[in-house]
């Protein structure tokens, strides 16, 4: 668990560093790493449980403890899918912006909507 905390923190640091680069592709990388970091953050904060997936046995009337918390998992599942959609759009946008403006330097795109 300490390891997970360090991993989340490390991924956040990498993501932020990437987001602060002028290169637009690095921005996309930063976004991807950030989405992993956030998902793991929610996952870890919800509590880590080994060998107990939240799936009720086929004969059971309900799910008996112990089980991994299903709610953060449902949230993260949604987040993964949406992140993918946003990622695809971001990639397309960066590519289009680079072709339109002839640069991938976010500083050079300042204050103009050419």
């Amino acid at each position, binding site marked *: 668990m*300490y390891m997970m905390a360090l991993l989340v923190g490390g*991924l956040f640091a990498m993501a932020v560093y990437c987001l602060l680069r002028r290169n637009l592709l690095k921005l996309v990388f930063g976004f991807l790493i950030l989405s992993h970091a956030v998902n793991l953050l929610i996952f870890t904060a919800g509590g880590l449980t080994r060998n*107990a*997936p939240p*799936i009720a046995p086929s004969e059971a009337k309900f799910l008996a403890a112990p089980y991994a918390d*299903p709610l953060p998992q449902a949230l993260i*599942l949604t987040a993964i899918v*949406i992140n993918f*959609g946003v990622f695809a759009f971001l990639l397309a946008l960066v590519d*289009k912006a680079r072709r339109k403006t002839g640069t991938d330097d976010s500083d050079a795109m300042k204050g103009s909507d050419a």
Partner: protein
Amino acid sequence: MIFAGVILSGFFLAFLVAPLFKVLGKAAPWVISLFPFSQLLFFLMLWTNRPHATGELVACTQWVPGAGVDLCFLIDGLSMVFMVLISGIGGCVFLYSKDYLHDDPHLDRFYSYLLVFMSAMLGLVAADNVISLYVFWELTSISSFLLIGFHPDTPEARRAALQALLVTNLGGLAMLAGLVILAEAGDSYYFSELIQRGDVIRAHPHYSAALLLLLTGAFTKSAQMPFHMWLPNAMVAPTPVSAYLHSAAMVKGGIYLVARISPIFGGTALWFGALTIVGGITFVIAAVLGLAQRDVKRMLAYSTISVLGMLMAVLGIGNEKAVQGAMVYLFAHALYKSTLFMTGGAIDHAAGTRDLTRLGGLGRMLPLVAGAGILAAFSKSGVPPTVGLIGKELIYEAGLHAHSAQKVIVAGALFGNMFLAAVAWAAGIRPFVGRLQSPEAPHALKPMMWFAPLVLGVLGVALGWAPEIVEKTFLHAAANTVSGHPVPMDLALWHGFNTAVLLSILTLAGGGLLFWVRHRWRRFAEARPWVGPDILYDRLLSVLKGIARLSTRLLQSGYLRQYMILVWAVSAGMVSWMLFDAAPLSWPAFAPVLPHLHEWVIGSVMMAAAVFAIATTQRLVSILALGVIGFGVTLFFVLYSAPDLAITQFLVETFSVILFVLVLYRLPELKDRSPVATRVRDALVALAVGAVMTLLVLGSPSVQYYPKISEYFAQVAVSAAHGHNIVNVILVDFRVMDTLGEITVLAVAAIGVYSLWRREDA
């Protein structure tokens, strides 16, 4: 319901004005002018036929039931006085505008604004709910902005309109805060109930704050010093607007508010002090400044400020005579001030100037306008037999009845009234008598330009002869409302010789003297540069703009990175504040789950991959490194009992890598353009964020704000939704609408990607 309809129908009619002008052409103003008069008739009939002779009427319609906001109207003596003035003078102003602005191409628009203004004012004085009072209050500010800036082609008009809006809106916000405090203290949002709870509110710890906030609103609206500058500047408005704004609408809003809260807040030392000091100073200074003006409208504007100050001070005194005096003088002032503005506008039309030093002897050409002006000037200066005199004597008596030291008010009132009398004659009489002086040959005026002021001017004198008509109908009831208990009232021109009569004679004599030396005083004042609040307003505005520029330059640099740094620094700062202040860390909570060796290995590989993805300049390598991170996350989902997440993450990761590879050949180079110093700074920000997030994860197990709701899902998933995979059941059953939203996001993103990549022409 009917009452609400009558008040609010003005707003609807405002939208019908333009079509009416299209259909009826020149006859449209006649039809529209009928509206305020019919409202006046309705109010009077409603009032005289009320069930209890002493009581008030409350008419309610639900508006926002959830928020406790109803459209409730309270019709008592006080609101009747105002409603009669607003609709009656409103009707005269409507008629006058027809001829004053007869060649204006936007006359229809003018009537629309005027209708909104009048209806907002009616709503303001009849509102029972404090929130709806605020809404109507701001509506009058907005509509007066439109009216003052009706001819927006001059910078003065634009500045004056904005100034009026800013000053009265800031005051309005203060008033809103005061109203909320009042309502919370009195545990009701209705004036009709709050009036009963004056004792509770006067003893409340927030009494002073509420009162001062409410008075700030009233003082800005009623142009009390130092907020008065917007009113003389508002003289750029067309004259009918000035006539209305100064007499029955807008500036009287502040007086109304003070009168309305008088039974709730009145009688304390703070009430007396704040109102008499601010009102008294405004009264005297504005009267003195008014006599130094050469523009008839500016002169009248200062005299309005002065009278408003007097009314404020008198309401501050708050004894029986004071309340009566305030109500009577309020009524008298509305009549004569609207008349004087209308005659001023008529002079401007006929002679081509408003400069009083260049006007004289116009009475021979404009006998009826002159008649109206002279009658109004009589009422204003307190010459018998006018309603103005009755009001003025009551105010003197109020001062004489005040407690010992407060009698100094009488001296102030005498001094100010002398100046006001001189102003009345200079503005209302002097242009019409004496040698003929006029820059243009005076021409005859259209009928409504003399008819409207003459009606109001004659009323001022007729009601001086027979004040019991208005006293019986509503002024007495109004005085009772403002006092909070029934007071005796007996209006008459002559009560026998007493001190008040002596003071009235002194006022006229002093006024005559001042009238005689007024040009000397004007030249003296004009020769001196005054530093008034108007200049301060400009400075304050430029300071405000400077701050806006500075903050824009600081925050809106246009560099994405700087916004990012700001956002991250603020979020990390707030999270760490929460961690250390609100939810202290508890380390032992982690003990149960110790990492295995292979987990350390996976974590280390992911970290290494992340560093690699950042450091490398080779696109393919960095994309593979990102893939490693994604599959590492997938492994953790497997290890910690989240098979659904693992499957999804695996699929998405595969798609992401495919997507990257598909566009790989078009991807830009991966140069880092930043100098080393910038990289170090970014690294420090990144590390700080990372450290805070690590601490957040470590702190999270010890915080449980709400009981876990997962147990519910675990219990009922099988029985209620017939699913064994709880995560799936949550997504497709319990929270299915959220999943629908998720799918929508995907669809929108897909459309976006398609449209961006569709055409290559770019």
